[in-house]
C-alpha cells in the first residue's frame, strides 16, 4: 500500500466497502422474499355478542384444549387466555355475555412497557410474548387495560408442541398463530362455528373484501375502551362499548 498513489488506495477502499455493503445487504433481500408474517395483512377477530349465550364456554374450552393451559384448580393463579365476561346494565337490567382475550392492539401498551422487548407485535398485527427473553417482571400485566395477560405461576409439563409455555414467563392469546401461519383459523373461531353460536369470525382486517370488513361495514362495530386509542384488532358487535 505504501508505494501506490493515493487514488489507487482510495479506489480499493471504495471497492471493498461496496462489496461489504453488498454482502451485508444481500441476505436482507432474500429475507424479504422469504415466508413469514406478512406486514400487508392485519389479523383480527369480529365478535357478535348477540350470538353469545350466557352459559356457553365453547371458545374457552377449545382454546384451553388447543393451547394446553389447563389449570391446577387455583383460579387466582391459573392462566386464562380467554374468558367469558357477563355484563349487566344496572339502570335497565339488560345483560350481555361475550368472550374477552388479548385484543391485539395496534399500539399495545404491553409492548411499550416490556423492558426486554419480549412482548412484541408481529408484522401482521398479532401481539405475542417471546418467552426466550421474557424475564417475568409482569409489567405488561400491569399495563394491559384488558387483563389479557397471565403469568405462569407453576411448573408446566406436556406442553403442546406448537404452543410452548413455561413457568416464570407471561403468556396470552396468540390468536392461534400456529394455525394462522398454516392457513387456518383460531381454535375458538372453529369451535364457536361448530358448537357455539357462530359469534366469532377471524380474518384479515386489511382485506376490504374479507368477512370482517364486509360485516363491519354493514352492521357497525366497536372496540373495548376505544377511548384509550389503542386500536385493538378485536372488534365487537352488539356490546355496550
Amino acid at each position, binding site marked *: 500500500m505504501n508505494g501506490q498513489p493515493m487514488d489507487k488506495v482510495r479506489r480499493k477502499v471504495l471497492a471493498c466497502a461496496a462489496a461489504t455493503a453488498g454482502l451485508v445487504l444481500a441476505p436482507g433481500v432474500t429475507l424479504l422474499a422469504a415466508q413469514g408474517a406478512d406486514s400487508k395483512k392485519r389479523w383480527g377477530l369480529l365478535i357478535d355478542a348477540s350470538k353469545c349465550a350466557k352459559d356457553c364456554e365453547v371458545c374457552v374450552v377449545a382454546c384451553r384444549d388447543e393451547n394446553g393451559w389447563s389449570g391446577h384448580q387455583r383460579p387466582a*393463579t391459573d392462566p386464562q387466555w380467554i374468558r367469558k*365476561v357477563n*355484563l*349487566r*346494565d344496572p339502570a335497565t337490567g339488560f345483560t350481555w355475555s361475550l368472550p374477552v382475550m388479548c385484543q391485539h392492539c395496534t399500539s399495545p401498551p404491553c409492548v411499550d412497557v416490556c423492558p426486554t422487548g419480549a412482548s412484541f407485535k408481529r408484522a401482521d398485527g398479532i401481539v405475542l410474548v417471546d418467552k426466550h427473553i421474557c424475564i417475568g417482571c409482569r409489567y405488561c400485566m400491569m399495563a394491559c387495560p384488558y387483563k389479557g395477560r397471565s403469568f405462569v405461576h407453576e411448573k408446566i409439563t406436556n406442553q403442546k408442541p406448537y404452543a410452548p409455555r413455561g413457568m416464570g414467563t407471561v403468556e396470552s392469546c396468540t390468536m392461534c398463530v400456529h394455525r394462522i401461519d398454516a392457513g387456518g383459523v383460531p381454535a375458538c373461531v372453529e369451535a364457536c362455528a361448530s358448537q357455539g353460536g357462530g359469534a366469532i369470525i377471524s380474518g384479515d382486517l386489511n382485506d376490504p373484501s374479507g368477512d370482517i370488513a364486509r360485516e363491519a361495514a354493514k352492521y357497525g362495530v366497536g372496540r373495548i375502551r376505544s377511548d384509550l386509542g389503542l386500536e385493538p384488532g378485536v372488534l365487537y358487535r352488539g356490546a355496550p362499548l
Partner: protein
Amino acid sequence: MSRTIALREIKGRSRGYWLGLGGLALLAGSAVAATFYIEHNGLHVTGMNNQIAWGMPHVISIFLILAGAGAFNVAAFSAVFGRTVHAPLARLSGLLAAALLFGGLSVVMLDLGGPQRLLVAMSNFNFKSTLASNILRYIGFLIAVTAFLWTLMEPRMNRYSRGAGVVAMLLGLSVSTGIGLVFGFLVAREAYDSAVMAPMFVAMSSSFGLAVFILVLAGACSWTGRPLGGFIVGRLRNLLGIFAAVVLYFTTVQHLAGLYATEHHGVERFILMEGGVHTFLFWAGQVMVGGILPLFLVYSPSARKSRRALLAAAAMVIIGGLSQLYVIIIGGQAYPLVLFPGMEVSSSFFDGAVNPYTPTLPETVLSLGGAAIAFLIVAVAMKFLRFLPETLADAALDPHYRPPSED
C-alpha cells in the same frame, strides 16, 4: 465552628455490633433461600397472582430505592448547595444512598419470574419501557454516588466533589421521577395514569430517605458513643417537616383531582372509603401516621426540643411511606380494571371484582432481606472506612455556638 470535623471508622467490636450483623446476615440469607424456594416452586407459593401481579416485594423494594435516592439529599446540601454545616454528613449520606438502592435493586431482581434471566435483561433493552431505562438510571446513580464518595475520600479529588455531587443528585432525581413514571405511564389503571406521580415520588423519596438517614445517624452515633448535637438535629428536623408536608400536599392534590373528575369517582371511593385495608392504610397509615403526626412532632413547641420526638417522627414517616406505597401499588391493582364503563361485570377471571392480597412468608422474607442487605452494607462499610463523623456536637458544628455559662 473553628475546626473541621474528622471522620473515623467505627470500632465494630462490641457484642451488639456482631449480634446485629449476624441478625442482618441471617435475614439476608433467608431472603436468598426464599428466592430459591419461590423460583423452584413457581410464584404460586406467594400471594401474588394474575390479579395482583406486583406485591409486597415491590412495595419494599420501591421504598428502598426511593429512600436511597432521597438519602443523597443530605450530601447534596453540602456538596452542591454549599451548606457547609452538613458537610460532615456527606459521606454517610452517600453510603446510605448507595446501600439502600442496592438493597432495593436486589429484591426486585430476585422477585423476577426468572432471576436467571438477569443476563437476558442486561442484553435486551427496550428503551421505550420506563422499567428498562430505570435500570440504567439505578446503575448510573450507583456509579455516580460511588464516584462522589471517592472524590470526598481521596484528598486529591476533593475539588471535584461538587461536580460529582451535582451528577449524583441529578441522577437521584431521575431515579425517583422514573419510578413515579413507571406507574404514571400506565393508562390502563384508574389509580395511576397521572403525571403527578413523578413529582409526588420525588417528594416521597426526599421524605423517606431523610427519615431513614436520621434514624441511621442517631443509631450509629448513640451506639458508638459519638456526640450528636442539637444544632444538626434541629436542621434535620426542619428538613423532615418540610419534606413530609410536601408529600402531604401532593397526596391532597392527587385525590382532589380524582374527586373532581367524575370518571375517577369509582377508584377514589375505593381508596378513600370502601377499600377495607387500603382505606385503613391510607387514612391511618399514610395521612395520620405518615403526615399529620410527624408534622405535629416536628413543629409543635412542646416537641421541638425533644430528640425522641424527632426519632419517632422519622419512624412514623417510614411507616406512613410504606403504607402509601402499599395503597398505590397494591390498592391500584385491587381496584378492578374498567373494560365496560358503567356496567356491572363478572367473569371467571375476576373481572369487576375487588382483588384481595395476602402476602405469604416467602415473599415477606424476600422483601425484608433486601432491607437487611442495605443495612449490612452500611454497617460493614462504617467499620472499614471513614464514614461516620467523630463528633457532631454543637461546639464543633454550630457557627453561633456559645458555651453554656458556668452558673
